[in-house]
């Protein structure tokens, strides 16, 4: 398996504050990687650097074999990025929002229609596509956000807190959607979150980031063995709290 995301010594400082501290991260092709950490840990900053939207102070990153700082175009073409708290043009319909994204990705109009319909169907918005986004519920907006990513047939999805503000049912549907995309289309997923149980449910591997430093990476079982001994039924919650208290 090849690394689809690879960072070495990636660092970002804001003034004297270190938002991301010498990060060495590897995400493998085909997996769902959970990026965990409390508020202000530096998750969003890391993601922005992976997309070339913020420049690292030091260190290097490779995404799909390209350097995000100097060569972001191929990355942007193949990566679907869902920002935390994604927004839309509220006075346009869901479909029109998708059309704009398709146009920006140079998808010819003849293909765009079919892709948009398919994306709306996948996220369960086939019926609501022609409603104005201003009238969407929180859950629908979040799903529209995923539909926008699907329009460009991404190889990699980077989702920043995709379940933020969703109710338990919405959260469940979102996670199932993500898992389904990973399984049926082989899309690699990196998602950030601070909700542990949901990450535990769908992620193959997790990384725990605290105050800009990656303190642990591995499968949940591995982390449990390392931190809790051979306690039965490893709970990410417990692992996380151990790491959290240590720092």
């Amino acid at each position, binding site marked *: 398996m090849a690394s689809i995301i690879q960072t070495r010594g990636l660092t970002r400082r804001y003034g004297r504050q270190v938002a991301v501290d010498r990060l060495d991260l590897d995400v493998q092709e085909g997996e769902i990687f959970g990026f965990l950490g409390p508020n202000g840990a530096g998750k969003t900053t890391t993601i*922005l650097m992976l*997309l070339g*939207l913020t420049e690292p102070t030091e260190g290097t990153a490779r995404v799909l074999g390209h350097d995000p700082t100097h060569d972001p175009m191929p990355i942007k073409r193949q990566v679907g*990025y869902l*920002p935390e708290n994604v927004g839309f043009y*509220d006075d346009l319909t869901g479909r029109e929002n998708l059309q704009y994204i398709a146009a*920006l990705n140079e998808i010819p109009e003849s293909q765009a229609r079919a892709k948009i319909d398919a994306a709306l169907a996948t996220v369960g918005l086939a019926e609501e596509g022609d409603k104005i986004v201003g009238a969407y519920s929180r859950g629908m907006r979040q799903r529209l956000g995923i539909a926008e990513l699907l329009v460009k047939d991404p190889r990699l999805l980077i989702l920043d807190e995709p379940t933020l503000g969703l109710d338990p049912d919405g959260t469940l549907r979102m996670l199932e959607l993500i898992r389904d995309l990973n399984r049926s289309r082989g899309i690699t997923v990196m998602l950030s979150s601070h909700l542990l149980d949901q990450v535990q449910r769908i992620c193959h591997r997790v990384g725990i980031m605290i105050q800009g430093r990656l303190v642990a990476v591995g499968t949940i079982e591995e982390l449990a063995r390392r931190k809790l001994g051979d306690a039965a039924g490893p709970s990410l919650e417990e692992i996380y709290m151990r790491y959290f208290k240590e720092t």
Partner: protein
Amino acid sequence: MWKVCRKELADHFNSTRFLLLFCLVFMVALVSTYMAAENVHKALQGNTKPSQVFLMLFTTPGKFFSLVQFVAFFGPLLGIIMGFDAINRERQLRTLGKLLSQPIYRDAVVNGKFIAGVITITIVLASLLLLLSGMGLVILGVVPGPEEIARLAVYLLISIAYVAFWLGLAVLFSIFFRSLATSALASVAIWIFFSFFMGFLADLAADAIRPVYSTRDLRAVVANERLAHSISLISPAVLYAEATGAILDPFQRSTSRLLLVTPLEGLSLERFQGPLPLDQSVFLVWPHVVLLIALTLICFGIAYVTFLRQEIRTL
């Protein structure tokens, strides 16, 4: 870039704000030009027609103001209204991060928006001019000669550059200020400053630098006036007024108010010698036009660089 531009154009033409403004401008322009046409028509009756009478349609005040004055006054508002929320609206909607993660260059966003604005301005002003010319044609019964048409075209180009300056300024503020209201207010403040206070300030500054102790000291008076005039040229409003004045009035031989008021100049026969050819008029206002475009480019350039360096954090 053209993808962004196309969407922005569609947005402009679909927005209620724009439609309202469009109707307002057209109505005021129609009424004032109609009155101007009536006035010109009356004045012409019984007289032989002077040359280039068609242009008077645009420079003659109806009851309150001429069309040219109206555009000079309202054009900036048009530019401001189209640009003040260009970037900060995307911030507010939280669409900026998403937009920039698409395979487009960052500058394409600013360029696309700016160009869409310029295209809109061009469409509005050109259709306004065409409509009013048509109306003038009917009322005056005068067919504009090729030179008059050329002068109107030059006038149109200068006007587009002028409104584009305000568009650029508004876009710049939409990058600097997060709040829509602040950016709109900042643009309007600059507009008021340049349009209404610049002349006054220029006089003040000139008096401070080159004081006139006696009005009989002609040299001092001239130096003072010259300086005040030069200072006031920082203002795009002044630049625009002088440039369009000279273009639409072929009898105007200088853009400097001073030369027309000094006794000798005023008495000179120049003014009665018939109109200046178009190329001479253009030559006269060339520096103005260059300066106006330079100011626009400076505004846009600053906007551009600021945006390229800005953190896109949509917090």
